[in-house]
């Protein structure tokens, strides 16, 4: 829709016709913000364009391809699906574009995947397997549902009723239990009563990310209802992908604002940062490490709250009523850094590409499942940067990042250590 009624509804690709047709090929989506441009190395922030090189893999190519899809000028093919799905939907392109322009790149990319699914061409076969796991076993791995709470350490008892509800997520429940364990120990140490979902199901991040919007919406309704039934005021997550799903994509799916969810969605780092600043939690133990922090995309540039919008686009492309664009400015950038700086012995060195310019680890949004080699390539590329700043360890706030980095380190035979931030917080508070 170039003029007239328009909304941010990702199920209708024509809502983004204007955005696709106004891409100017400045490639701000691919390059690091020029103000922060570090020179000839580590100068890009789009994994897909950096790996596959053809313009078609950058957002500028995808906008042109998307427009051709909308206008019926391109047929589906393996290459087209690869271009749509060999992309981490990490939001780097969106914030890069919105530094100068008002185009909705991330939403367009999501809408393209939704269209591919609705046209019966997407998602990728590997995604269908994951979707099947989620729909039948309520977790993305296809593991037995009854094992979901096996991670719970001895001696930690969740409350039957509490203001804080810890949503563990599939990764920390099944493959990265150390994150869930550290999280509940931190909550315990801070004297925060917390509860778990009576019957936790997958958040549906992969479903939404690959365009299976109907299934994702169904899960969103079910999960939100389940949280509401518990009476929780705060939903706490230790997974950045899950955090974005709850905070941004659930409201998007249900056409409501984040503020209307009925509870607050926080990531562990936001919660802990506040506890530290209030003096409720003390990080007293030394952790002697020179480490660097990796901004997980879904906690940082993709995490601004969602507000539905619909209106009209008129002359010069102006829209009314006022649309507050999500430009990544208010992502959760500082709290994890403040936490790490507060740990005695930690020497925090920043990577060359940080905050909104960070290079995605490559794991999220369906990438790892369908394009594992690309996902590992992205992680290895990011690890080069970790090494370039002389860090001994890399810290993330998402099990997806941690797992992908750990696998890359293992393949490389590197000596780098990979942590989730919960593990370091725990190390700093436990006796």
């Amino acid at each position, binding site marked *: 829709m170039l003029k007239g009624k328009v909304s941010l509804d990702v199920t209708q690709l024509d809502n983004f016709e204007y955005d696709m047709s106004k891409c100017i*090929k400045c490639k*701000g989506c691919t390059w690091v913000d020029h103000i922060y*441009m570090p020179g000839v190395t580590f100068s890009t922030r789009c994994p897909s364009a950096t790996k596959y*090189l053809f313009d078609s893999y950058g957002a500028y*190519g995808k906008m042109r391809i998307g427009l051709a899809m909308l206008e019926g000028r391109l047929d589906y093919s393996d290459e087209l699906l690869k*271009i749509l799905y060999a992309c981490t939907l990490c939001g780097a392109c969106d914030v890069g574009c919105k530094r100068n322009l008002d185009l909705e790149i991330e939403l367009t990319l999501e809408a393209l995947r939704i269209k591919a699914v609705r046209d019966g061409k997407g998602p990728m076969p590997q995604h269908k397997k994951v979707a099947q796991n989620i729909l039948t076993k309520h977790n993305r791995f296809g593991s037995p549902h009854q094992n979901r709470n096996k991670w719970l350490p001895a001696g930690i008892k969740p409350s039957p009723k509490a203001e804080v509800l810890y949503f563990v997520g599939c990764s920390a429940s099944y493959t990265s239990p150390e994150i869930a364990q550290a999280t509940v120990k931190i909550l315990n140490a801070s004297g925060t009563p917390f509860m778990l979902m009576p019957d936790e199901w997958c958040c549906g991040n992969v479903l939404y990310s690959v365009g299976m919007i109907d299934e994702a919406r169904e899960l969103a309704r079910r999960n939100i209802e389940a949280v509401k039934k518990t009476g929780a005021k705060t939903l706490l997550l230790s997974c950045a992908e899950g955090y974005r799903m709850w905070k941004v994509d659930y409201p998007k799916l249900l056409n409501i604002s984040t503020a209307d969810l009925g509870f607050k969605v926080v990531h562990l780092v936001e919660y802990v940062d506040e506890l530290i600043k209030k003096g409720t939690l003390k990080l007293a133990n030394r952790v002697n490490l020179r480490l660097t922090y990796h901004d997980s995309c879904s906690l940082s540039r993709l995490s601004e709250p969602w507000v539905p919008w619909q209106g009209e686009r008129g002359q010069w492309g102006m829209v009314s009523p006022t649309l507050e664009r999500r430009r990544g400015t208010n992502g959760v950038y500082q709290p994890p850094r403040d936490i790490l700086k507060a740990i005695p012995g930690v020497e925090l060195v920043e990577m060359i590409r940080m905050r909104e310019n960070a290079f995605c680890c490559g794991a999220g949004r369906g990438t790892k499942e369908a394009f594992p080699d690309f996902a590992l390539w992205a992680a290895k590329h990011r690890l080069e940067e970790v090494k370039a700043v002389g860090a001994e360890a890399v810290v993330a706030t998402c099990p997806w990042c941690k797992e992908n980095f750990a696998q890359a380190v293992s393949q490389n035979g590197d000596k780098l250590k990979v942590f989730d931030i919960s593990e370091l917080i725990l190390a700093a508070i436990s006796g």
Partner: protein
Amino acid sequence: MAISKEAYKGLEAIVGAEYISADPVVCEGYRAGPGGYECGLGYERVMTKIPGCVIMPRTTEEVQKIVRLCNRYKVPFVPYSTGWYGPRSHCHVADELLVDLKRMNDFEIDEEHLYAVVGPGIIYSQLQEEAMRRGMYIVIGGGGAQVSAIANMIGDGWSPLSYRVGLPHRRILGTELVLPDGELVLMGSLAVQDDPFWGEGLGPDLRGLLRGFTGLRGCLGIVTKMAIKLLPFQPERLEPTGISPNTTLQLPTSRVKWINFTMPSKDAMRQAMFEMAKAEIGGGVTKVPIFWRAIAKARSKEEYWELWSQESEETISSFHLLRVLLIAFTSEEQMEYEEQVLTDIITEIGGEARRTRPSDESWFKNADSAGMWLMCGGYVSVDYVIETLEHAIPHGENYAKLKRNYTPPLMPDYGDPGWFQSFELGHQGYSEFLVYWDPDENSDGVDHFYLETSKENIRKRFYTSLLGPHQPLYLTGPAYGPNYHKWLLKVKDEFDPKFICHPPVPLAHDEFVERAEWMKPMKDWESPEIKPRP
């Protein structure tokens, strides 16, 4: 597949299967428009095609082999570095090979002799950071930080900082060019030794082949390597700060400082530029279009229009903003001295300093050209003139007057006469006229205005920079030459007898007028003979 299987196999053997594609989806990603510089206008719609095949060489040798193979199989080709320069840098004919040069991103820097050797895949912000880290700098042209340094050096490449350090072609040193037949030309000192430190070599200066005035848009071969002169800078770091979209370079104000002045008139601005030049002070100076201020202030397109709508003919005609950059190259005392001299000059002329942010968002490292699309979605600079300061002002005023006839579809700008500034310490004056339109409305009037500016230049004797590649060669050639169009085509014939390198440039705008029905009423000049193409 658009090109023959045999040709494709040959190309694939040169670069490897990973770096070539004739897939229609991949090729669609290389479409020029509909958005971008000059895109959405008739030229883009009529004259551009998606490539038939895309290839990404890594080395000069690979480029030579590709070009030779194109000659053998009569495959037209176009060099492409970042694709920023709108339709003019994209395929114009069916089944064309697009040679994407982004993998050619080699970079070396010679700190002792102050130059960098770059491949076409290196962009300006990368080059600037590498230079500044070593106490040097370069001008990032108005094209923006995201452009290929080589493409911009052989094209335009100027900015307010050109006041101090001159025009880009003065900084082109040893250069490597693959001619349209695959032969390698080494220019400057590279012609005699493996050292690109100097721009001139034996015999005639062949850099004219690349650029003429503002370049020939890739129709005379492919530049694969260029040494670019860097200039000594002051020693303090310009510190990046802020989170997108509010990122900026914090200036060390004892060494680098922008100062904005309100001036009583355009003539006072011109006078200030002259006086600054006579005193040999300043690192940059410019009069900026007033709407750029609104862009800088606005947080969104809607906010821009809210701000801009408050302006009127009266406010625009009575507001004259001069922006001056001071750089203390040698010492903090230089800053004190230059600021004092500048204050004296401005006071004497009747100007007044305004509060100015101690930061740079626009010229040192970023060059926010992408922001030009915020307001309307369509943008092109229809003319750049480099003459004298006396000419620069009337040029802008003339265009502003002419523009009234084409507004709408052009954005209302209340008579703002564009951008003018001083180049090379006042020895030259620059005027650039930028236009904006809503690409989702009928833009025939913009096409008409674009062509009308060519005629206006002829009528008013403005020496435009866009003679060859952006205006009908057979309109401007006889008027400016009287035979430069014929001469230019002879050069093209000599180096590209098969007319295989980016056809139909330099006759592309002529062909556009022939093919676009709505342009025909304006056609009152001789038609060129269009040579058969491969």
